[in-house]
């Protein structure tokens, strides 16, 4: 028997990359995709190259270059990252690749950790690149490793769409052997192929269109699509990707007899869909997010000389937003086909509501330097100022009143410029993290200085890419693998981008930080504040331990100034009307600076 291991979906995908002989792997962190490169970079023995790139466009181009040189390559990102990488994606589809290339994109239906829930299958159709859509972590691993040879066969990159429940699901995984073939990379000069000037693009585009039929026929017969026709039933269920395991469980639970088609690849297996439609009078399509399969089924059905009832997003049996689950599938099957659901559902709602459990949204950690930066920012700029922000842990500062907009990676500085250029007279101070600044903030700052935006930009430099799990970035002097490298100097970078006011502060020194913000506010032009203080999680991991603080209740008059910081380590005792510090205190000292009564002191050793 082959080895079986309990693995995270992303670790299984990483394993699939190794089994398939991936030799250059690049990516930008983004939940739920980050652990793929994390797993590969932390391996002690490697015969592949792995990097955290500075953004997804860069990452895709690095992987594309490797594949042009005949090497098997992978790029990883979250769904919104593909928007950033869409430019090279669309033209790479014309060019194609020599070595197998897999573009791994992790979708986040339900927005567990994302600003939208776009469906990557749309990009597959848009770019005319094949897409693999796994139903389980096991399939994910096996699909990735097979995707390389498929990519090489058609000389096209393959999109691999994961979702949160694949990437962050865990499962027993049966392992296969690791590919030990090594091919010497060689870039073959071929101007007609690698130089997409109009003359060449006009030739490559029709070739891409022509090969679609062959791709479809090859994928149709792959083991990732499965058609089970029922002899006795006239109803059919079609399910795609992760939704297929929910649909299958729902069918077992409801004990329903139906023809069933499981889809795992795109372009869609038309012939299998036609075979199913030949057999049934009504069909339900179950897929997460967009009605991608559904639209195609409707189109195929129109061509058939048969009246088939089609259910799915239309008529709203399957939602177009959010995640699916077994319950949604059961209700949809039950309603579409009048199948009784014999389970008696027990509703706890009244009992739960009677307790009124407080909400528990994610918050900035105790000892997080962003809290201090935001406090000082608001002190200097006031409640009336406008605070565009960005994507990262600091977005959790939405409760501090210093996050007025969050659009996309790098969107803080540019949105700030736009608000300024609209003629808004109130001060504008935006915030962006170190990794996000290096991702797409640099262009925004350059645009702001060049076009004379009178705004303040705060780089929240916590020395890591914290939100996605502390991946290294060029500001840290460390590679994905931990190896030392150059450390980008934020001050020098900002100055070279044209910023004349650049000041670095330690946010835990709150009075000095407030002063710096006031100067930046009064400066006419683009000003930059760099709030530099390592992420508390990271610094604790590196062994930095400060003494915690304690509140002398005799001195505390219950003014709640420290409470307003919103630190999870500070509690208010309503009965005795005083604040107290709990065991979560990391000793950052921010609250000490709030207290006018000297009630907060460091716990002595």
């Amino acid at each position: 028997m082959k080895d079986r291991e309990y693995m995270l979906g992303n670790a299984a995908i990483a394993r699939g990359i190794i089994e398939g002989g991936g030799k250059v792997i690049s990516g930008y962190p983004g939940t739920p995709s980050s652990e793929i490169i994390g797993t590969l970079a932390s391996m002690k023995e490697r015969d592949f190259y792995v990097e955290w790139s500075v953004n997804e466009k860069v990452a895709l181009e690095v992987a594309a270059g490797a594949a042009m040189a005949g090497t098997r390559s992978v790029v990883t990102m979250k769904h919104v990252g593909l928007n950033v990488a869409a430019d090279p994606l669309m033209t790479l589809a014309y060019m194609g690749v020599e070595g197998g290339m897999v573009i791994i994109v992790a979708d986040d239906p339900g927005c567990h950790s994302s600003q939208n829930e776009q469906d990557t299958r749309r990009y597959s159709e848009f770019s005319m690149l094949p897409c693999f859509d796994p139903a389980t972590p096991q399939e994910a691993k096996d699909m990735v490793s097979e995707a390389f040879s498929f990519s090489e066969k058609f000389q096209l990159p393959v999109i691999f769409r994961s979702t949160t429940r694949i990437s962050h699901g865990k499962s027993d995984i049966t392992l296969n052997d690791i590919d030990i073939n090594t091919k010497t990379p060689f870039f073959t000069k071929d101007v007609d192929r690698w130089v997409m000037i109009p003359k060449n693009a006009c030739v490559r585009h029709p070739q891409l269109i022509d090969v679609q039929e062959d791709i479809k026929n090859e994928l149709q017969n792959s083991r990732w699509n499965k058609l089970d026709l029922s002899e006795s039933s006239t109803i059919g269920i079609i399910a795609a990707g992760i939704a297929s395991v929910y649909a299958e469980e729902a069918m077992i639970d409801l004990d329903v007899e139906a023809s069933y088609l499981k889809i795992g690849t795109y372009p869609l297996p038309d012939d299998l869909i036609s075979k199913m439609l030949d057999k049934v009078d009504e069909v339900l399509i179950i897929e997460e997010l967009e009605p991608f399969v559904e639209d195609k089924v409707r189109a195929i059905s129109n061509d058939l000389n048969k009246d088939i009832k089609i259910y799915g997003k239309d008529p709203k049996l399957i939602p177009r937003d959010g995640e699916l689950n077994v319950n949604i599938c059961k209700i949809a099957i039950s309603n579409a086909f009048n199948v009784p659901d014999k389970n008696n559902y027990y509703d706890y709602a009244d009992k739960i509501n009677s307790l009124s459990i407080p909400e528990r949204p994610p918050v900035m950690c105790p000892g997080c330097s962003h809290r201090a930066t935001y406090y000082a920012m608001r002190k200097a700029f006031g409640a009336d100022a406008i605070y565009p922000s960005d994507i990262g842990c600091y977005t959790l500062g939405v409760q501090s009143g210093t996050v007025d907009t969050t659009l996309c990676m790098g969107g803080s500085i540019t949105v700030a410029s736009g608000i300024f250029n609209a003629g808004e007279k109130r001060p504008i101070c935006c915030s962006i993290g170190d990794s996000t600044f290096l991702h797409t903030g640099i262009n925004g700052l350059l645009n702001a200085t060049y076009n004379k935006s009178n705004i303040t930009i705060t780089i929240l430099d916590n020395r890591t890419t914290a939100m996605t799990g502390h991946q290294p970035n060029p500001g840290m002097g460390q590679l994905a693998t931990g190896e030392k490298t150059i450390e980008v100097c934020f001050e020098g970078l900002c100055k070279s981008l044209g910023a004349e006011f650049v000041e670095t502060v330690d946010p835990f020194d709150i009075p000095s930080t407030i002063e710096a913000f006031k100067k930046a506010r009064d400066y006419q032009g683009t000003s930059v504040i760099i709030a530099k203080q390592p992420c508390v999680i990271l610094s604790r991991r590196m062994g930095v331990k400060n003494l915690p603080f304690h509140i002398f209740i005799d001195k505390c008059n219950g003014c709640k100034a420290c409470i307003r910081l919103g630190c999870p380590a500070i509690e208010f005792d309503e009965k005795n009307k005083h604040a107290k510090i709990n065991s979560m205190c990391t000793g950052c000292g921010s609250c000490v600076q709030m207290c006018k009564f000297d009630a907060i002191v460091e716990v002595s050793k």
Partner: protein
Amino acid sequence: MSDKVSKFDLIISGVGGQGTILASDIIGKTAVISGYHVRAAETHGMAQRGGSVVNHVRIGCDYGSLISINGADFMIALEPSESVRYLKYLAPGSKIIINTEPVYPVSVLSGKSSYPAISDILNILEKDHEVIAFNATKLAVEAGNQQAMNVVMVGALSRYLPFDEKVLFESVKSIVPPKTLDVNKKAFMLGNKIMESH
């Protein structure tokens, strides 16, 4: 309901940072060693920063990782209010092991909202479930570190899981950081022992 597609469906709820993922890893790994298929769903990313977290662990399951409404056989709640938030996943009559030590959300710490009395939570749960409640955080402190509370809870669950407690204990030893081995061994034993009185 879960008989056909899953042998044992478990919900693990808690607060980001309490170690729900380690708890489900110990159980998942043991299930694989014991010859079962396993599916698990975890909360990562944004929701980990002190937010509410829930893991689904399905032992003997070859389908999706998400447990149906009313589908779970068991819940371990690492924090009392987090048991209530995910109650809908439980089958009536299923068992709940609950740590009675609360972790207050920021809105409660700052006095903006209130936290229900633990006794009220337990009374509600006991209407439809067999509830085993004790202060697992105190036991973890007794074992040597508050952070080992998740392992106390795994120890308490051990006799209900469909595999050998000894194999589970071996998994605890192999998964926890070596530095914390003694504390976690003790935490597991304390959790396991407290169930003798239930």
